[in-house]
């Protein structure tokens, strides 16, 4: 996808949020472009999950605006965003425990005119359709969650820590799946600490630190940023120049 095709799908402007009087975000921004994967990185407690939840309409910012679906939202609503084309992949349990994987895929596909069977085949979960999420391993559950995203065919996907706990081979597959969603025109934002897998999937890196964010450009450029290397990548970044 060329940069000319990269239209902005989601933008968070100058979001601030405090919890119990403790400011987590002071002025954080985030942009998601059509066909691009944005890696949102930062140290634990830096506020990247909060920023993602503000972008998803799950948390209301104390100040700041979310632009999605052609309008600016001061009080975003997650369900309205979902109807407009957003799919939120939370850190824990995107799938309900009650229903089988197949049933949940059908629910999403029926609601948004997707193809549950094709999504299951693409994610390699056809054999798991009759199982409930609590009968799946961590890797299988991640694949089933990706199938849900495939069935939804979202305009924008926000994924919070999807690489957590995955074996390298599964992480590699997941990076490919995120790229495949982006290739369909989806704007993808992913948070993670698994830098190698994340950077393999990402087009751009946004660094969340000290309550604000920095757009660092491509993963290669991000690795060259001295402050980012020093304050986030640590030894890993300096070894991979």
């Amino acid at each position: 996808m060329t940069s000319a095709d990269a239209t902005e799908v989601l933008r968070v402007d100058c979001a601030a949020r405090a919890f119990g009087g403790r400011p987590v975000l002071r002025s954080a921004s985030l942009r998601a472009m059509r066909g691009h994967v944005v890696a949102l990185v930062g140290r634990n407690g830096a506020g990247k999950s909060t920023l993602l939840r503000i972008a998803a309409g799950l948390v209301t910012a104390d100040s700041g605006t979310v632009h999605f679906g052609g309008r600016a939202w001061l009080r975003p609503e997650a369900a309205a965003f979902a109807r407009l084309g957003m799919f939120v992949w939370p850190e824990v349990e995107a799938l309900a425990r009650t229903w089988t994987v197949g049933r949940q895929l059908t629910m999403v596909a029926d609601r948004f005119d997707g193809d549950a069977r094709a999504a299951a085949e693409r994610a390699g979960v056809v054999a798991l359709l009759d199982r409930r999420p609590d009968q799946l391993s961590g890797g299988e559950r991640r694949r089933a969650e990706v199938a849900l995203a495939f069935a939804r065919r979202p305009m924008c996907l926000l994924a919070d820590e999807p690489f957590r706990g995955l074996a390298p081979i599964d992480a590699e597959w997941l990076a490919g799946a995120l790229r495949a969603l982006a290739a369909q025109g989806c704007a993808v934002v992913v948070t993670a600490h698994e830098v190698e897998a994340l950077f393999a999937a990402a087009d751009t890196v946004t660094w969340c630190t000290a309550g604000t964010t920095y757009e660092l450009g491509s993963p290669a450029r991000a690795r060259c940023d001295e402050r980012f290397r020093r304050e986030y990548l640590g030894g890993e970044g300096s070894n991979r120049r």
Partner: protein
Amino acid sequence: MVRGWRGLRPAVVPLLARGTVVWLLVHAAAAAAVRVQARYPGDPAGEFGVGAAVGVVALCGALGAVDVWRRREGSLLRNLGLGPDALAAVLAAPAALGEVVVGVLSRPGVWLT
């Protein structure tokens, strides 16, 4: 493209079915409590009034919300575009409808009495 309520039916029907079962149990318990209370002389609360019906609806909605949380269905329902207001309405609907029907049928002159 988003379908309307028709597309939500596979998710909403189980919620309504569960809501109906919960309402039957809660209403039966509340009615039994009212009957027990009515045995004590001097206690004015001798019938299942509007206040009790509203309480039953609120309790059923709250129990439904806890059940959705317990089953971790919130994320899926949100991704289906079902917001908190709509979810609350779906969870409370069977109880509200049930209380209205029971209330109408148990009025003097109607066949339940």
